[in-house]
């Protein structure tokens, strides 16, 4: 799946959990979910579950450990999609 499409989908997913709207408007590959978007760490699991549902993939615990940034999440989505 191409980058822009994944980012667009990710923006939709993270939006309800974001607590810093300025960072959300500037969301890019290097955006950090917790430090930049101020997503509550308990809501990060919601982001992960929503990503699983939206892309119809399963994110294992090892992959989940890295899911702190947009970039890392995109890489995991692409890896999981290619394994399907």
């Amino acid at each position, binding site marked *: 799946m191409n980058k822009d499409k994944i980012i667009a989908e990710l923006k939709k997913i993270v939006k309800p*959990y974001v607590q810093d709207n300025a960072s959300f408007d500037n969301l890019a590959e290097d955006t950090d979910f917790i430090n930049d978007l101020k997503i509550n760490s*308990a809501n990060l699991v*919601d982001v*992960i*579950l929503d990503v*699983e549902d939206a892309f119809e993939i399963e994110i294992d*615990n090892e992959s989940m*450990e890295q899911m*702190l940034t947009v970039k890392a999440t995109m890489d995991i989505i692409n890896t999981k999609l290619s394994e399907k």
Partner: protein
Amino acid sequence: MIGNDIVDLTIAKIESEWNRPRFLNKIFTEKEQQYIREYPRPERMVWLLWSMKESAYKLHFQHNKKRFYAPKKFSCEMRYLNEEEGCGKVFFGDFRCFTQSALSDKFVYTITSLEKNKKYLSQIIKMRKPKYNAQHAEVYSGAIAQFAEYSGKSHDKIYIKKNDYGIPFLYFKDEKAKTDISISHHGNYGAFAIEMS
């Protein structure tokens, strides 16, 4: 070193749907899920365990400065629990720490330390203001006041500064104090914990 974490239960109810499919299994070990099922107020147990994991992660981060998201790997063991307080341990590989928790209808709160029965100065603050920056200032000034009283140092020369990793430290007259501190806020509650030597 010290870690703490507070969960505002009213806000948690709004922010998180803990009983959505797969939620518990992503975060909690089999044993922890059993604690949740068997506890009369499962929701409170969810957030109690979460605060144990989160404060243990904070402590671990101070230790090795690595960021990651692996809540399930921080495995909790409850040693004692009543309506108002609890204590236990959290394990993460070889890393092990001790927790002390406080519970109420409004919040759950955990302090974590590497040593058992460590003494702390800690306070839970009900925030008067809704804005993050104002809340931040409220917790800081509460912590400074308590540290001043405990150490006998002049209150206007104490301040708190975060290092490059975002870990807060107490300073007195521009010198880093040997006493460690941890700060947490969520929703309408804030808390600090200062390790007593």
